[in-house]
């Protein structure tokens, strides 16, 4: 099972819009609460009320400053979870076959019953998408809510990952990135969606949409009303009232 499927007809994944994400962490906690009582063992929080709490999370939101040559830095909120790579190095390194990539939809999963907790898959993942559960000592990772997206106990419109359903800003999109006609593929094409760490050769399925340019476009200056050239305050006001009279006539 550790070998990757040659290709998958469907590549389910997320498209994350960095232009829209406000960094509210809604996806982080929604993911936590869905998954702690769902797939595999609970997502534990070690020392939950203590000096050094450490929990397993499948999705975390980083905050970056991006500083151009000139001017202040831009702040970018950056949610990150498993990218369900085509060439997932985490899968091939697994010695037990616990890590696998589903042939039917490309979702990368950990079969926790077979996981020995060696941590090598987390070492192999360049993105930090895998975290060892601090209590159960098995590897946890984003399942793309595989227990939601096909779940017949859930109404159809909710058969999407928990993070996508909850995102208040609508910065997260879910779909088949192998289908060029899917909404997510179109979004990626339209907005120039990109891969994280392309140099690692992992072929991530999840895509990120870049922030739109933050430099305002120039706008023509507002014209001074023709007869408002004078500087003295009263005169300016009188000039303005001249315009006002003409404007009121047109009402």
């Amino acid at each position: 099972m550790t070998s990757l499927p040659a290709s998958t007809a469907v590549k389910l994944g997320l498209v994350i819009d960095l232009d829209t994400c406000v960094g509210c962490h809604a996806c982080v906690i929604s993911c936590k609460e869905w998954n702690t009582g769902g797939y595999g063992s609970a997502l534990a929080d070690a020392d939950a009320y203590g000096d050094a709490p450490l929990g397993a999370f499948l999705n975390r939101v980083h905050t970056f400053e991006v500083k151009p040559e000139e001017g202040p830095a831009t702040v970018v909120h950056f949610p990150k979870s498993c990218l369900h790579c085509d060439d997932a190095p985490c899968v091939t390194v697994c010695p037990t076959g616990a890590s696998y990539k589903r042939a039917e939809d490309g979702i990368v999963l950990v079969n926790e019953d077979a996981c020995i907790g060696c941590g090598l898959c987390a070492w192999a993942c360049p993105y930090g998408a895998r975290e060892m559960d601090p209590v159960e000592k098995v590897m946890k990772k984003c399942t793309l809510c595989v227990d939601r997206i096909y779940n017949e106990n859930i109404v159809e419109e909710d058969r999407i990952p928990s993070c996508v359903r909850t995102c208040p800003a609508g910065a997260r999109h879910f779909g088949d990135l192998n289908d060029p006609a899917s909404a997510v593929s179109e979004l990626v094409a339209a907005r120039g969606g990109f891969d994280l760490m392309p140099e690692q050769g992992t072929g991530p399925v999840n895509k990120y949409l870049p922030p739109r340019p933050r430099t305002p476009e120039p706008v023509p200056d507002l014209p001074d009303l023709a007869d408002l050239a004078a500087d003295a305050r009263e005169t300016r006001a009188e000039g303005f009232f001249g315009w006002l009279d003409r404007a009121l006539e047109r009402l």
Partner: protein
Amino acid sequence: MSAKQPFLEISPRVSDEVRKTTCYMCACRCGIDVHLRADAEGVPRIRYIEGNRDHPVNRGVLCAKGSAGIMQHYAPARLKAPLKRVGPRGSGRFEEIGWEEAMEIAVSWLKPIREKDPKKLAFFTGRDQSQSFTGWWAQQYGTPNYAAHGGFCSVNMAAAGIYTMGGAFWEFGSPDWDRTRMFMIFGVAEDHDSNPIKMGLGKLKARGAKVVAVNPVRSGYNAIADEWVGITPGTDGLFILALIHELLRSGQIDLDYLLRYTNAPHLVVKNDGGPDHGLIARNEAGEPLVWDRDEHRARGWREISTKAALHGEVTLPDGRRAVPSFDLLARRYLGAEYAPEAVAEQTGVPAETIRRLAAELARTAFEEAITLDQPWTDMRGERHDTMIGRPVSFHAMRGISAHSNGFQTARALHLLQILLGAVECPGGFRFKPPYPKPVLAHPTPHSEAHPNAPLAGPHLGYPRGPEDLRLDKDGHPERIDKAFTWEAPLSVHGLMHMVISNAVAGDPYEIDTLFLYMANMAWNSSMNTRGVMDMLEATNADGSYRIPHIIYSDAYSSEMVAYADLILPDTTYLERHDCISLLDRPICEPDAVADAIRWPVVEPDRDVRGFQSVLIDLGARLGLPGFVTGAGDAVYKDYADYIVNHQRKPGVGPLAGWRGEGEDIGRGRPNPDQLHRYIENGGFWKSHIPAAAQFYKMANQAYQDWAVGMGFYDAPQPYTFDIYVETLRKFQLAAEGHGERQPPEHLRAQVALAFDPLPVWYPPFEGEAVTGDFPLHAITQRPAAMYHSWGSQNAWLRQIHGQNPLYVPGEVMESAGLTDGGWAWVISHHGRIRVPVRRTDAANGKTLWTWNAIGKRKGAWALSPGAPEATKGFLLNHLISELLPPKGDGLRWANSDPVTGQAAWYDLRVRIEPASDDGPLDPLMDAQDSPVGRGTGDVTYGEEWT
């Protein structure tokens, strides 16, 4: 390789039952679906909380706090039973008592007060969502001393909005997210109305609308704004007035709108030095006058619309001279002092940016105007075939509000909106029912207390002039917080932050019992936190406490708990009844009226009771009018009973849906089945506003009629937006020596300055008082994942924000010689703190910032004493005083807005110096005992279902 994949259950059972209620993890009041599933013992536990897709507020989405509700509900910090203090105040040592004993103690304190002098009770609530009930209780009790926390939160915004246009930002209105094309936010935090704003921003982004953020810090919403204006704190008003200057200079204003819907044409009396100078000229019926341009005569404002004059001095029928208020406005803001070049340095916003933004606003408002083919009739009976929209909208919050010039700054922003014609129109800012509502539809404040008698009316209201100040016949404040006095004449939310220091000082009088609900006054909800702790512990010569009795109700073991004598433990939000009432802060949409309930979706497993039910019990035990029948029996069994059966006026109760037989809305007799109907419908009720009534509500006949039907008011009350506020002028006249009620001499100049009837900007007081030594500003920002101090007991949220560094702009890091990740002293005129610092390059260059209310006191919230919240998390509050530095005149000058009394905590000025490498944090308060023990070990929530 083997192609066999392990078996995977892709359709697991999710839950046994879904119960729909209302979130209370912040003030948004989103609808939530609480999935319940039996644990190993068969007890229903919360499996999962998600947003309710049908709910008007959040439409299915839910923020981090909402989803973390599970951890809030099961937090070890929950109070478990009523507590009686056994150690000294502040120690945290309590013994558990039964409810009967707790109620007897409370009655033994409250009953004698009411019989002798009800004002000896000060009853203040914090982030209370039942203010229409708690206020009514206090009114029936008869104490004048009631308010919620608005005085240190939002009152500048609320008061400026109501006085200017009959409604405020906050959650009282919203941008027309579906139509607006340019959206500007000022000082907006990521908490109030947060899901609606995030959803709205998402819509704007999807449409490619432009978002401009004005904020010294580029966090949260500001980060995704297409343009960020990193303004210097406290100068927003100046920046806005420069935008207004630009729009006027170029004639980019909506004259038709100004004439029809505002008091721009209303005539203002010119009688320099006279008692009527600056007042609105009125006819015999008291209606404001305008000048008919065609007929050259004064007429009542409703008689004409676009034919009124907007400038020029005229002679009134009684011979007095007058000018349209717009004349005064134009002359003022065309002045060179408001030119972009003149304000650039002070605001930190380059002149070209101001000019460009004004041009973009103008272009969007006027060249991209919207026309809806929706006929409607205005208050003058004029019929319009279409609705014209200006697709520019604004939103603002504490960033402009919590300054000593915040009231006038908020006014300036409303003026900008109004000049663009962008309020209550398609694409602009829209009110949510029951707003807009003119000042005249609000009560005036009441405070005259009599033994054993209720107050004559509600505590809080909107003064119309000095005559409505709450001063006794000797000119002394009637309220303990000195609200509605010359120090804060329009303190329409009360001044909770002054209660403790005034009570301890015995100024204006001493009190007997301080009764607080959900207000962490001994920590993050006070300025000068250390000082407040000392005051709560302060004793008389005989060793008795200065404040003899303190009763506190909260669901969690907060810092304040340790300072109370009697604790009435509240339930969690999932164990209680509540109503999100139209009598209170509504959850409506611009297109629809809505209200909602909470109901016990899980049963308490502790000896706790919903606070409102406890108040009802107390009311009955005290025999308060309205709480007992003539025979002395309790009127209401509990809060749920009150929600269904209470009527504020005939047919109008806390909930508007399913009244009468279940068919009535707004008005109708109580329906015993009402709560069931709410539960069946997902915990809320919603009814759409007719299409012709959806815009221009303040002037729309169809809306006014609909609102009367809903019970918002008893007769239509159309009105104009007041760009010129006569009430302010009345106070200013008093400051100029007119009228019976006169401000004390030392306040005359301040009142004259701050009560300008047209928006004005003056530098924040603290900055003026400390010139030189404190060149920097220090402010807090609200993290989206933590609501005030409410999240540290939450195992998930505290991992996101368990400590808070001070973010320091790169240039300050360098000039002060600080190291990224090191420590620094931050010093204000009031105090000094030693805190961890981090570099940022995305903040106004003079502004330090940190997240709000992450720091916690050792021992509180059931955390371990070494928790990062206590050892690295800090509050800026220690640097902020409720008073300005002494001016040498022997007087105490409040650090607040002189109009509303809003605490000016964003005015804070500091300097920063390097500290030793590894702290420690300073001040580091002693640990308090935890009355609930401490959370220990690991959490593996949900393991029974995996």
